[in-house]
């Protein structure tokens, strides 16, 4: 390796770039899929939305009782949520039914229907979470707090969709660890959200449906059966967890696929460069090979040396590429790449980019840096090693 420094350097740099570009995209894509799957883990098994004129609309609250009666449904919770904006920045306003949320219900199941003494541990940086009596109180994400310069105790005057000014008291701010899903969120109780979006009393945005199934393997089949039954309800559509997960995976796979094309091109170029360099060096090293054979090295010994050289070079390039990808994603926050994967010009740079350095991706990266190099070096090395040492030394001198 040291003898043919230029060749080694060329192969190392090009392979390292290929490995770095692949690994950085793969780590970020895997992280986003993993984060999406984690969020879906806590999502309702079914989300029932209203449909009108083929478009999503509000759903009547009278459907709550009919959906709850479907066999296999554990309970149903109402939700009002939508989008608002602060200038050009999108925020998500969520109104939850605190009396009937899954968290409250689970606590009641565990502790009985008496008053729940121990409040769940919400990820708050400061302040407190909403309670049933909270009216016109909000808990906001860190991104919103920083955007508005708000703190616990701040009173926000908000212009709603119906051009009515309403005042909300900030009682809590979510912490940085939850920023990935809470940075743009303004959380309030159901009735406050109803006023904010001017939603009629008999309507909500959607219904969160939780099923009886405890086992993940049966949940998908059970949710499909129940989804079919609920779809008989007029003017509604049902989103299952499975649908949302596959949509997320497809989206991030498609987006990472664009970069994969670049990586494939780089890899093919590297293989060609490596092959070319090995042929050139192979010609130059004929004397060296002839000398080794004259000293007693066999053909297999020479090929073995070349294989070890390729393994070390490929391993080094792979390791450098992987570690570069880790640094690019985890420490630098994957600039440009993150914007593409999440959407251009997203205005919340503060949340940590989810990165998953899977063992599968690491092994695959090493495989694609080592195997093409082995292929590109073994054949020329074998051709070189099989020549008679006397001819090789004379030919090299000539």
């Amino acid at each position, binding site marked *: 390796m*040291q003898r043919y420094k230029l060749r080694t350097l060329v192969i190392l740099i090009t392979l390292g770039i290929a490995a770095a570009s692949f690994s950085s995209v793969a780590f970020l894509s895997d992280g986003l899929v993993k984060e999406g799957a984690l969020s879906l*883990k806590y999502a309702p098994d079914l989300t029932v939305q209203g449909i009108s004129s083929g478009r999503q609309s509000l759903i009547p609250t009278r459907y709550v009782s009919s959906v709850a009666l479907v066999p296999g449904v554990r309970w149903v919770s109402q939700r009002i949520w939508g989008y608002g904006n602060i200038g050009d920045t999108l925020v998500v306003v969520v109104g939850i039914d605190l009396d009937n949320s899954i968290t409250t219900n689970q606590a009641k199941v565990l502790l009985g229907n008496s008053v729940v003494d121990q409040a769940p541990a919400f990820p708050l940086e400061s302040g407190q979470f909403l309670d049933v009596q909270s009216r016109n109180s909000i808990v906001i994400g860190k991104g919103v707090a920083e955007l508005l310069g708000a703190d616990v105790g701040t009173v926000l005057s908000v212009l709603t969709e119906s051009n009515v000014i309403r005042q909300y008291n900030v009682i809590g701010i979510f912490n940085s660890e939850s920023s990935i*899903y809470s940075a743009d969120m303004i959380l309030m109780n159901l009735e406050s959200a109803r006023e904010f979006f001017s939603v009629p009393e008999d309507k909500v945005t959607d219904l969160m449906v939780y099923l009886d199934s405890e086992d993940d393997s049966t949940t998908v089949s059970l949710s499909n059966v129940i989804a079919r039954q609920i779809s008989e309800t007029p003017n509604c559509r049902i989103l299952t967890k499975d649908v949302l997960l596959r949509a997320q995976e497809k989206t991030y796979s498609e987006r990472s696929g664009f970069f994969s094309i670049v990586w494939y091109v780089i890899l093919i170029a590297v293989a060609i460069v490596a092959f070319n360099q090995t042929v050139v060096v192979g010609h130059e090293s004929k004397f060296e090979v002839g000398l080794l054979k004259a000293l007693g090295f066999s053909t297999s010994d020479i090929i073995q040396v070349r294989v070890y050289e390729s393994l070390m070079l490929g391993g080094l390039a792979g390791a450098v590429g992987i570690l570069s990808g880790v640094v690019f994603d985890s420490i630098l926050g994957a600039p440009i790449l993150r914007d593409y994967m999440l959407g251009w010009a997203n205005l919340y740079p503060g949340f940590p980019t989810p990165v998953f350095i899977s063992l599968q991706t690491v092994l695959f990266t090493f495989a694609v840096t080592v195997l093409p190099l082995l292929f590109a070096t073994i054949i020329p090395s074998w051709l070189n090693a099989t020549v008679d040492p006397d001819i090789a030394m004379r030919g090299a001198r000539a």
Partner: protein
Amino acid sequence: MKSRTLVLMIVFLIALAFVASGLSEISWSIRENSPEVLRQTVGLPSTTVGNLNPSARNPGVEFLCTSLFDVPGGFCNYFTLGVPFTNFTVVGNFTVISINGEK
């Protein structure tokens, strides 16, 4: 000596890559087994995206669909009854129930 140092450095870097992977796997495993009360309460399965323009939030193949918005001709199945990837039979998923009086 120089060769030995080089080999040790290569082994160290490869080991470092696997250590990074191991730490990441452990970290995600801990996260997956830790309850996330807020996510469970809110129930919204998404990550933070902070841009108002739907086409800006959806690059690549979604651009044409979402940049045309919800206008005639701007049909996009993300906004209709035809939710992609559905794998259960949707009852009543047909606008036309008969043609020329035949069912």
